[in-house]
């Protein structure tokens, strides 16, 4: 009797979850693809190979690569210092790392706008040094880095914490240098969490809209990333190209998802 009941509950829960996933995740994806191909393959190809689209792809890739690089380095440093050393303000630092996920991206964008824009006291100096941040590529990169800042360190902190410092101490006692200790003792331990963090960071960087939107100025061919380009096309009622460009983002996301699954699978296997 009890068994019967739990079986019903089981299938009910699975059914609801599947329905939800279908309605809210899969259906929109199908819609994107089918809308993109509504006017046929030629129209799709034209939209995708459009000059502005290509430059948006490149800008998105550029911002993503830089954000991943910077956050890899700083994420590693931050996670390392928080877990391996004791210092004053450590709690504060752990909290600070999380700021980007708690602050709305729009507000983050506005903060940068106010810090580097016309109203800012440092604006004249930037101007004199011929540095353009707001409504230019550096602003976009900056916003992307900010928004994706916690992803790598947050993956690393728990693994580094659970490992403790014993193995590193043992290695140091045998005369190993700091670099050797990192390469041979610490890195193998954090490798999968690290890769996973990079994947998440890349995924988030590619899709970033809010903060980037504030700082970009929407200059077509110059400061337009893929998500911004989609928005512009959509606002101009050019639905087919809008969906076509969206499908590029969808494909990039699918690639990331596949990499993510592989990393997760290999990481589990390694344990």
């Amino acid at each position, binding site marked *: 009797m009890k068994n019967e009941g739990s079986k019903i509950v089981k299938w009910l829960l699975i059914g609801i979850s599947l329905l939800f996933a279908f309605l809210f995740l899969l259906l929109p994806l199908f819609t994107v693809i089918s809308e993109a191909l509504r006017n046929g393959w030629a129209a799709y190809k034209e939209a995708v190979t459009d000059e502005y689209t290509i430059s948006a792809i490149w800008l998105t890739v550029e911002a993503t690569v830089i954000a991943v690089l910077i956050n890899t380095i700083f994420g590693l440093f931050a996670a390392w210092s928080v877990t391996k050393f004791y210092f004053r303000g450590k709690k504060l630092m752990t909290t600070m790392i999380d700021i980007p996920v708690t602050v709305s991206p729009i507000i983050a964008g506005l903060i940068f706008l106010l810090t580097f824009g016309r109203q800012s006291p440092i604006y004249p100096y930037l101007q004199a040094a011929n540095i353009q941040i707001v409504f230019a590529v550096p602003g976009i990169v900056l916003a992307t880095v900010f928004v994706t800042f916690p992803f790598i360190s947050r993956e690393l902190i728990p693994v580094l914490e659970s490992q403790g410092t014993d193995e590193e101490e043992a290695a140091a006692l045998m005369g190993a240098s700091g670099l050797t200790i990192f390469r041979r003792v610490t890195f193998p*331990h954090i490798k999968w969490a690290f890769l996973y963090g990079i994947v998440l960071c890349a995924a988030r960087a590619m899709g970033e809209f809010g903060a980037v939107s504030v700082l970009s100025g929407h200059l077509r061919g110059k400061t337009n990333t893929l998500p911004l380009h989609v928005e512009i096309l959509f606002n101009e009622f050019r639905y087919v190209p809008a969906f076509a460009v969206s499908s590029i983002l969808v494909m990039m996301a699918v690639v990331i998802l596949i990499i993510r699954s592989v990393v997760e699978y290999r990481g589990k296997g390694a344990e």
Partner: protein
Amino acid sequence: MYVELKNINKSFGDFKASDNISFGIEKGKLIGLLGPSGSGKTTILRMIAGLETPDSGEIIIDGKVINNIPASKREIGFVFQNYALFRYMTVYENIAFGLRVRKNDKKSIDKRVKELINLVGLEGMEKRYPSQLSGGQKQRVAFARALAPNPQLLLLDEPFAAIDAKVRQELRSWLKEMILKLGVTSIFVTHDQDEAIEVADELIITNNGKIEQTGTPLEIYQNPETAFTASFFGQTSIIGDYTRFKTFSKVENASSAIVRPEFIKITKKGEVQKFRSSAVSGIVERTLFRGSNIELTVRVGDVLLTARRALDEPIISVGETVDVFIYRLFVTVGNKARIIENESLRENSIVI
């Protein structure tokens, strides 16, 4: 002295983990660092290894002050309390690590690793990872890894703590043999008295960040200098007013007395007992079969004593009134301990 600590102090915040520690160790000796949990044993070991810096005092190894030499240059072997094996390296790689760091050539590394694997009896396990080993096997790997670069000093932090009683016994004798064979000066930490007495050439007793006493196990066992060392070994009983037991001379300012089970003779009322006239009556509260003997808990007034009786002696049951005779006891005056013998033993020897 090969290793010497001079007036070492170390605090963590307000907590004094090492309080004016001084001792010396001769070359080739196996030293046991014995004390209750939290008494600062690991802290001493970590300071010698260079993983912790003393606030003041000098650490001298082989005539050189090494306070400012980093851990990586001290060439000390260390076996951690929880082994700290490199979990992403095989047994072979774990042992080879210290040699690879030194950039020794491949052939000599291979030779040395094989030698050590033979020494610790782990042939055929070279390719295993630490997670695939038993506690005793991990311990052997940790030992081999620490020995691989030929350290002049080996430090072992509770090497047997995580191992069950049976294997522990075997490993103890094994370790002692190994260290004797290699002749490497070693310090090992333990909070197990039996282990310390059995394995060490000399003991250093720690308590509350201080050193209570140093000496051979026998010396310390027979002549404890402080109240702490007197009560630390065996199942001691504390007696507030020891003059209730007959024929002990009075010691001025005595705070209390400590007796070990082997200092007490329990006899049935009818049994032959040479010192009958100096015995007092007690009531047996508990008897416990201990395998090789029977442990008795006897009440004399408000004092509970733990004593033993051989298996071939007549059986004593709970509730029985027995004669209690104490041969000797440690009287504590302040922090100092002093042994006093029962007077009737002396009279007896005069008679003979």
